């Protein structure tokens, strides 16, 4: 039928020729869908970041002092601690994720599975480190309820963590499907989409880390 399509009269097209639209080049449906989903997620985090900056700009403690972080939590967020290791872990996972993409693009399935596996493990390690870091903060008395500082910190990092968790699930599915041999250089839209999402959560973390710990 594909060979026949030239033989159609000028006023008729096969209806399913529309389906081949994406096969004729351009971005795939899945990747475009993921990019749109990521733009939507960007706006979600934009709302949270806006809340953070608004809260921070207006914050005055009970004594009338304008200081951020508030006095009681002045030194609690130390960038040169476990969180730096977690950051390096997450950034590395973006690198391995990209290596997995390059591997599957040249049909190197073993390299692809190895790199996606490493990315998956690094994602889990990041989550465990973040959970441990939370427990340290709780011990020092900082919780979701301890003033605007605690509320914004745990909301922003918590929702980022939830997105990492979602990304880890995606990577797990991609890994499983990869091990089942479902991907090749011609068919790996799901991998491209998952990797875009993974890079996105990585970029959000870099922003969060810089803003919460340094700014």
């Amino acid at each position, binding site marked *: 039928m594909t060979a026949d399509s030239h033989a159609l009269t000028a006023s008729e097209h096969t209806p399913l020729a529309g389906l081949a639209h994406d096969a004729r080049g351009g971005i795939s449906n899945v990747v475009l869908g993921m990019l*749109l989903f990521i733009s939507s997620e960007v706006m979600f985090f*934009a*709302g949270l970041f806006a809340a953070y900056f608004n809260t921070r700009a207006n914050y005055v403690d009970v004594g009338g002092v304008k200081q951020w972080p508030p006095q009681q939590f002045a030194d609690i967020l130390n960038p040169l601690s476990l969180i730096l290791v977690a950051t390096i872990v997450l950034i590395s996972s973006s690198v391995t994720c990209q290596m997995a993409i390059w591997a599957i693009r040249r049909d190197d399935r073993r390299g692809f599975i190895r790199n996606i596996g490493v990315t998956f493990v690094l994602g889990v390690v990041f989550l465990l480190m973040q959970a441990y870091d939370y427990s340290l903060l709780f011990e020092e008395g900082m919780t979701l309820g301890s003033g605007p500082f605690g509320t914004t910190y745990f909301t922003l990092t918590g929702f980022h963590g939830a997105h990492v968790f979602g990304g880890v699930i995606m990577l797990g599915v991609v890994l499983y499907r990869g091990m089942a041999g479902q991907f090749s250089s011609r068919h790996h839209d799901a991998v491209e989409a998952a990797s875009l999402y993974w890079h996105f959560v990585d970029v959000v973390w870099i922003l969060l880390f810089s803003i919460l710990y340094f700014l």
Partner: protein
Amino acid sequence: MATHALTPAAGTYARGGLYEWLTTTDHKKIGIMYVINSFVFFLIGGVLALVVRSELAQPGLQFLTDEHVYNEMFTMHATIMIFVFVIPMLAGLGNYAVPLQIGAPDMAFPRINALSFWMLPLGGLLLVSSFFTGGTAAAGWTSYPPLSADGPLKSPGSGQDLWIVALILIGTSSILGGINFLVTIFKMRAPGMTLFRMPIMVWTILVTSVLVVMATPVITSALVMLFIDRNYGGHFFDPFGGGSAVLYQNVFWFYSHPAVYVMVLPAMGVVSEVLPVFSRKPLFGYKAFIFATAGIGALGFSVWAHHMFTTGAVFLPFFSLLTFMIAVPTGVKMFNWVATLFRGQLTFSTPLIFAIGFLTMFLIGGINGAFSASVPVDFALHDTYWVVAHLHYVLFGGSVFGVFAGIYYWFPKMTGRMLDEGLGKIQFVLMFIGFNLTFFPQHMLGLAGMPRRIADYASDAGWNDWNLMSTVGGFLIATSMLPFIWNVFISLRNGRVAGDDPWEANTLEWATSSPPPPYNFDHLPEIRSERPLFDARHGLAGH
């Protein structure tokens, strides 16, 4: 070689009726379910409106036990109408029409499409379930803290939390639907269907989807923060704890203002499909209309704070100016529509009558909206019945009339049967008179200073007659639904058989059978303009 893949799947699966509908991924069935689900919630929201109007018919508390119950009624009325009726109803019409109008076999992601739909009845049930779990949300559909907070002016109980969760669910459904529309429109168009040959309905859905995808997550963030404040001791919006109540209003309106365009742009799309067909002319200024739609979408993101003039926390000249500027693209569209009708060969079928209802009522809503854009006027009218009148003229007079124009227009395509013209006209007359009787007096009430969201008012305030008139109108609107429901019922059984193209229309959905097969098209006409069927009918293809 791939012949088997091109053979439509008709008849290869024989699933029973109900099971087929519950598990379908066909955009046409999903679209129809959207419409039915939205209509059911429209009736629920309408009953709540009647409760509100009955209470306000006379001063004093007549049959609601206390003011809190009244607060629940208007909160749930607005929430249901906005989030479970207008937005999904228009998304449903889009779901039905868009793939057909661009010559595609289905949406880009059919299963995600089904997911988007099924979140809606779930979200709606969560909202309604709060009636039976100790009281609904009662802080208005805007749910400003501290009214909605668990703080000093608390909104206790699970109702407000159910409201938050339901709205997050419905918002997620919108986002997934918006992504689906965008990918479908960008990637699934039939050969020849360039962007500037797409029907206006598709263009309005495109702009709407951009608004949905970019704005809805912002209200999700607002709702998430409100939920954290209420349940986990957060301090986002609690001024006593170092938060800011105005912050909520900013994040809330950053979505909820674009949302008013989500609620009206697809209705404008419907009207722009109906007017050319029933005046036997092309839409006047096709491209200008598209740029005006995009302009409204873009401006829609920069006017949210006009809902917050009286907070004193926003830069008034900026938001006032941009709000006035929205009148420009809207005026362009009004000109397009009127010029399309001008010297057309009009046939006053029910879709056209509802579309003209849209034009006239939306015009009033637009003009009284422009008044409110003026800061000094807004300071006087803020939170009065003027605002209630304005929003109902655009949302009911605009969107709902547009929705009925769309239902009368596409019902023959959806079911293969025509709706009865006589009953349709009876419905229109009742609805049009009832609508104006309900909402025009509310302008007078607003100018006379009556605040919105009150259960009771002084009998010597001079508001009694207008309120009674408004209540009578409300019941007239309710009455106008009876001929419609009867019409659908008898037309499904005995309606005139529609045929493929009963209206001699222009766009591709009329090029297939009524109702269309699951795969939509056996073959498509050549697409060389925005009116491929007109071209085919008059042998103009290629010119």
